[in-house]
């Protein structure tokens, strides 16, 4: 277990420095910023532990072959629908989806399917849609949902086409999950 290098906290510390600067000159704004930031951290602390726990289990228990078959390059329409459904059934902010997308890639899911998954997660999530239905009405919510469903698949196909074979290889190789999983992971053999 190694901790991330201290330099990686640069951006966080820079933002914090700006916050403190504002706090010095405009205390009421500064406190409001710190309060909102603390709330964000609280939300993350509530949400991320189970997400990462499940990630670890997926990594150890789900064999790579299963993911390749279900979501890989040759999974076809079923793979796309599964990716779509996984994003649709999700709950939580989009940034929680990135580590999941990473494990999917590391386990051999196709880039296209991962993009469909991210797209569905971002705008078509079921809990959000139910909420939207009640807040903005079925006409607004359903039209938006339908248009986004089309857009997500089209965008995923388009982005995938823009990646050359080599870029695709680099994308798969850069996944943190691949690096973390490398030594002695039985599920990857």
């Amino acid at each position: 277990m190694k901790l991330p290098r201290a330099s990686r906290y640069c951006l966080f510390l820079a933002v914090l420095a700006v916050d403190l600067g504002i706090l010095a000159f405009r205390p009421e704004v500064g406190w409001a910023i710190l309060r909102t930031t603390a709330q964000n951290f609280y939300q993350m602390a509530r949400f991320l532990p189970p997400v990462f726990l499940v990630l670890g289990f997926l990594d150890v228990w789900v064999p790579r072959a299963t993911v390749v078959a279900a979501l890989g390059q040759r999974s076809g329409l079923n793979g796309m629908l599964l990716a779509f459904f996984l994003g649709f059934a999700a709950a939580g902010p989009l940034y929680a989806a990135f580590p999941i997308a990473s494990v999917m890639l590391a386990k051999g899911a196709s880039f296209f399917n991962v993009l469909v998954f991210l797209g569905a997660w971002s705008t078509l999530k079921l809990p959000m849609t139910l909420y939207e239905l009640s807040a903005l009405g079925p006409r607004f919510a359903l039209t938006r949902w339908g248009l986004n469903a089309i857009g997500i698949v089209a965008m995923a196909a388009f982005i995938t086409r823009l990646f050359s074979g080599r870029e695709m290889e680099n994308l798969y190789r850069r996944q943190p999950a691949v690096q973390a999983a490398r030594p002695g992971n039985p599920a990857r053999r």
Partner: protein
Amino acid sequence: MTYVAVYLAAAGILVLSLRKDPARTKQAARKSLSAFLDILPDFMAVLALIGLVLTILPPGSISAMLGPASGWAGMALASVVGSITLIPGFVAFPLAKSLLDAGAGVAQTAMFVTTLMAVGTVTAPAEVKYLGRKATLLRNGLAFAWAVVVALVLGVVVR
């Protein structure tokens, strides 16, 4: 409520995994922890940025500028604010409703909601870490362009 479901699911998997193989469960937990620690600096930066931006630029303050007569300028403004900030749906939708009730145009509101959920500038550092620069730029850029299409269609369909 969703939190309870997520925690129950995670706890269920944990119990199943422990019964099947404690050693591998330990391995899984270790992986979870290292994956979490690895991304923590990026997440912390994202959360701090959201806190800063949301306070300096409260989304409610733009409602006055998004009237139906605001046209393209209103849409541009809605998209800019929607793209920087990342607000959870349970805040975004009531806010969108209050925008509509306060007289904002449908297209402007749709633009705001869609970019809010799909386009994130402050989350980009975390996204780049996993997907790389090219995919991040393409995903956000295309989602932005698509939001314009959705907004225009909604402006016609919903009246």
